């Protein structure tokens, strides 16, 4: 006899999706980029990744112990935060700064606002921006054993030529996880196939970014330049793994499009006219802050509803 014949209260059929399961998929999807980063930048990258993950998990555990809340480290979200943060750091960053960033991500950006689901911005990116503002020197120093010199984006900014093939594969200077476009795309395709993320946000993000860059980048429709801008910096990692964060992205269909376009325009704006070569992380956390407004303005009309009912306050 099937279980379906049992008399019980709903829900009768449960999906297998749990927070931990989705987080596990994200971790698996991030593996190609992480492994490539370790191969590319060496042991130092592995240490940074391990330190960030460990610090995130431990600080979540300790914080919940201190405030007498049930421990939520089993949902793996702290692991994802730690991993994403590490992938956003240059491999030469001093360990204590990585630890500080991880604690900031978990304790201040996530737990202080009520834990997973309540955080107002992506914890990993919040911490990255905290570190970027605090330690501008070490956070933008991409010299390591394997590479010396500037990132491809900085090179483009200075008008020098870049090898887009290398950028696609990822053998360039940069943060641990952002260099290899192919590794990131492999992970992203896995996430899309598993139904964890959908293409709306990354798609509109990338398309609107390309449009912006083509219009205002100063190189017109130069294929090499646009490819380099797409593959350079944290755009791919940000678009597929951080802009799609469930907590800090809109849930309304129209809102997702608005959010993606906003991201594209802001990233283009920061990269083209800003003081730094990179602007993905600032664009994403700024858009994170606008998500509640975007959602409020894009609530879809209920089925069968004819006219827009004016809302009375």
């Amino acid at each position, binding site marked *: 006899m099937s279980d379906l014949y049992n008399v019980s209260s709903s829900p009768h059929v449960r999906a297998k999706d749990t927070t931990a399961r989705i987080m596990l998929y994200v971790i698996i999807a991030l593996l190609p980029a992480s492994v490539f980063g370790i191969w590319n930048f060496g042991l130092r990258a592995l240490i940074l990744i391990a330190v960030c993950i460990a610090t995130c998990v431990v600080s979540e555990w300790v914080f919940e112990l201190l405030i007498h809340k049930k421990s939520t480290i089993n949902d793996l979200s702290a692991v994802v935060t730690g991993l994403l943060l590490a992938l956003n750091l240059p491999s030469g960053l001093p360990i204590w700064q990585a630890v500080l960033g991880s604690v900031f991500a978990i304790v201040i950006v996530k737990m202080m606002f009520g834990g997973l689901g309540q955080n107002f911005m992506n914890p990993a990116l919040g911490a990255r921006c905290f570190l970027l*503002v605090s330690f501008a020197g070490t956070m933008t120093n991409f010299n390591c054993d394997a590479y010396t010199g500037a990132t491809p984006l900085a090179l483009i900014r200075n008008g020098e030529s870049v090898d887009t093939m290398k950028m696609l594969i990822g053998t360039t200077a940069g943060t641990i996880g952002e260099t290899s476009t192919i590794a990131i795309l492999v992970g992203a395709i896995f996430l899309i196939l598993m139904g964890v993320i959908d293409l709306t946000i990354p798609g509109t993000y990338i398309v609107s970014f390309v449009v912006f860059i083509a219009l205002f980048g100063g190189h017109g429709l130069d294929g090499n330049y646009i490819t380099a801008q797409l593959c350079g910096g944290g755009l791919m990692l940000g678009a597929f793994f951080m802009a799609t964060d469930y907590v800090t992205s809109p849930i309304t269909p129209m809102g997702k499009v608005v959010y993606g376009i906003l991201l594209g325009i802001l990233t283009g704006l920061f990269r083209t006219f800003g003081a730094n070569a990179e602007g993905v992380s600032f664009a994403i956390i700024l858009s994170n802050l606008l998500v509640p407004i975007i959602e409020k303005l894009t609530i879809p009309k209920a089925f069968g509803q004819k006219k827009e009912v004016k809302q009375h306050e």
Partner: protein
Amino acid sequence: MNKYVERLYNGIIKENPTFVLMLGMCPTLAVTSSAINGLGMGLSTTVVLVMSNLLISAFRKIIPDGVRMPAYIVIVASLVTVVQFLMQAYTPSLSSALGVYIPLIVVNCIILGRAESYASKNPVVPSIFDGLGMGLGFTIGLTLIGLVRQILGSMLGITVFVMAPGAFLVLAFLVAGMNVVRDKMEKKGKPLAEPSGCITGDCASCSQSAMCTGKSETKKTEE
């Protein structure tokens, strides 16, 4: 407790303008990038506060009710101008570090708040102590924030604490600390002041009445 000591205690701890009343947030966030800046700002505000409380209290029976705000502003602005010139003369580096925030003491809500809610209703000597207590409370608040930001930002090199976001972070943590203290005191049966939000709806006895924008209906009909 002695009436004057009570005023000092009230200003420094019970109704600390920075951590409890949340008044004067603009200089609190803007000039506290180092301990000495916070101390300078706090002390100059204290001087203005004591003097303005003294003068307003002394003139409280002369100032007509209808134009009391302009009258207070004239008194406070004169005092601030004096303080500004004194600082330019004797502490030029501090004066340039604090910049526009010295003249802005004129519109500091602590000063107008104390004038409206205390000095205009009480005799001169308690008003002086009220100003002194509030001023010292403000000074302590600003110096503490400045100290933490200086240690974290300039000494440990976490640059964000010297910048604006750091001011918000440090203020938030210090206020949280103050709330912990308040909770502990309440559990011991020695409650501190009410939190600054309106709870009772009794505007007549509320120290926030001067600045409050959400006064209860009874007050409006009276006016």
